């Protein structure tokens, strides 16, 4: 088929407009919602526990539970619009990490003997999952996992008196990356 240069230019313009619109749709289905949710939860929990960990132990657990329910709701909502194939190997790897992290290592290490250590340990396990996600999917998860793990370790090992400030920075990293993914990614 033969077309004029003007028709070709119009077609390319339509293509670019469609691509731009679809990129905006895709951007709504990246991981930014999860990062905003868990970054906020992490910041709130860090502030509460930094203030008085014994007093807010139950509260932070309820906040975390609410976060898990909200995560499930986001998953259901996003899968109604844009779906990826569920990679069962990825789920199996993450499941293995969590089982070993929460079920095996505490016994091997002889237990976790302080609330701060327990909190740091739990967050490090999740950052392992983020690293795996970054290897499997988009690499911003990898960088979040590495950076936040470094912050948690630095706070726990080097600056124990300011651990909750480092934990709050970890939550802020999630939150900030969520904005980056929403506004700038792809």
């Amino acid at each position, binding site marked *: *088929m033969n*077309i004029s*240069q003007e028709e*070709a*230019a119009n*077609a*390319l313009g*339509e*293509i*670019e*407009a*469609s*691509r731009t*619109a*679809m*990129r905006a*749709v*895709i951007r709504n289905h990246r991981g930014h919602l999860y990062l905003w949710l868990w970054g906020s939860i992490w910041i709130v929990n860090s502030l509460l526990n930094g203030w008085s960990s014994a007093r807010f132990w139950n509260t932070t657990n309820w906040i975390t539970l609410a976060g898990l329910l909200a995560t499930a709701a986001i998953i259901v909502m996003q*899968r*109604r*619009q*844009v*779906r*990826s*194939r569920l990679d069962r190997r990825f789920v199996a790897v993450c499941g293995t990490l969590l089982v070993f992290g929460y079920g095996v290592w505490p016994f091997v290490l002889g237990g976790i003997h302080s609330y701060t250590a327990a909190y740091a340990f739990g967050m490090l396990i999740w950052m392992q999952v983020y690293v795996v996600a970054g290897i499997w999917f988009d690499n911003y998860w990898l960088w979040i996992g590495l950076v936040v793990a470094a912050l948690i370790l630095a706070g726990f090992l080097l600056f124990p008196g300011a651990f909750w400030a480092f934990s709050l920075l970890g939550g802020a990293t999630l939150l900030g990356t969520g904005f980056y993914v929403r506004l700038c990614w792809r």
Partner: protein
Amino acid sequence: MEFLDPAIHQPARLKIMAALCQLKPDERVDFSYLKDNLGLTDGNLGAHLSTLEGKGYIAVEKTFVARRPKTFVSVTPEGRQAFTSHVQALQAILAQK
């Protein structure tokens, strides 16, 4: 020499292919979401998707979500290649003096 693909060059199908090729290879988009994004009617989009599916350029998957029928659309590797070739043909025409 690149050739224009008549199956893709129709304006609505051009927009459909351009949109679908933005997805990752393992991603697919809901029919209603695609329809709203492209500003097409159900019948219009359905007819164009049938044409593209017949050429092997897209895959249409019908499933149920919360007991409601849902249709998801994705581009095939052949469709992605055909669209890329079509875009290159358009750019070649534009580059002619």
